[in-house]
């Protein structure tokens, strides 16, 4: 128990160290999530565009099968 609380206390610098690591997790995690969300949005957009144009859909299917 002693060792766990001293681990989180970080020699009295807990506020600085954990904020730094938290910022790292938040910024990099946020960047990853936002990039994935953007990709999904774009994929849905393309799918909708292709579905709305029969000629393009046919072309897309031909491209897929070739």
């Amino acid at each position: 128990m002693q060792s766990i609380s001293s681990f989180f206390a970080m020699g009295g610098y807990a506020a600085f160290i954990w904020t730094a690591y938290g910022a790292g997790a938040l910024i990099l995690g946020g960047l990853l999530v936002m990039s994935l969300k953007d990709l999904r949005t774009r994929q849905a957009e393309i799918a909708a565009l292709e579905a709305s144009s029969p000629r393009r859909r046919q072309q897309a299917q031909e491209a897929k099968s070739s």
Partner: protein
Amino acid sequence: MIQKYANPARFNRLASRLMPWFSWPAGLLMMGALYFALIASPADYQQGETVRIMYVHVPAAWMALFVYSSMAIASAVGLIWKHPLAHLSAEAAAPIGACFTFLCLFTGSLWGKPMWGTWWVWDARLTSVLVLFFLYLGYMALNSAFDDPSRGERSAAILALIGFVNVPIIKFSVEWWNTLHQPASVVKMAGPAIHATMLIPLLMMGVGFTLFFFSVLLIRMRALMLARRARGLTLAGLHDMSAAGQQPAEG
């Protein structure tokens, strides 16, 4: 030869195949680095526990410079050889580089307060990294400032190349000017002046961040290619309709 990956379908296939080779090692390395950084490595004899901030701060600084340098190279390739993926990759990299640069500044501030007694000083190292952050933001703003995307990407590429002079300034700022910031400990002619217990988490985090960068870069490049294709399809759709004598639908 590389030209053929400008085809979105081919690029998509290549990106999906490469993805697990970047994303899994990135996750594992960063987890491993966290263990060594927070638990297995000792406190510094001068800086105490605050030295642990280094394992985020220094790799983030490396990435800030690495990503910007890659953007400058990609911009040069885009301007000279007009490879269609070059500007796209720089555009996809810019927000990632901006995130790493912000993380570097933020963690540096958190390290500076307990060790230097101040959150911020206007010295050469800190100021030049802040300039780097604004170069990233300027690149992104300029890139999207034009109605014609190709004009935007050319202007942004020129900014990226001009701003590249800042990269050696950042690197050597701690040697050229007096500063509170400590000089390099890892990349030195005489070899790293840092103990293995601290070097291991530092390098693991560095490689982990690099692989993380490539994972997110692939995701963002795929999204940008789809956006470009959607623009093309919309224009072609309008063209089809006007060719058939129809009015394009409202909205």
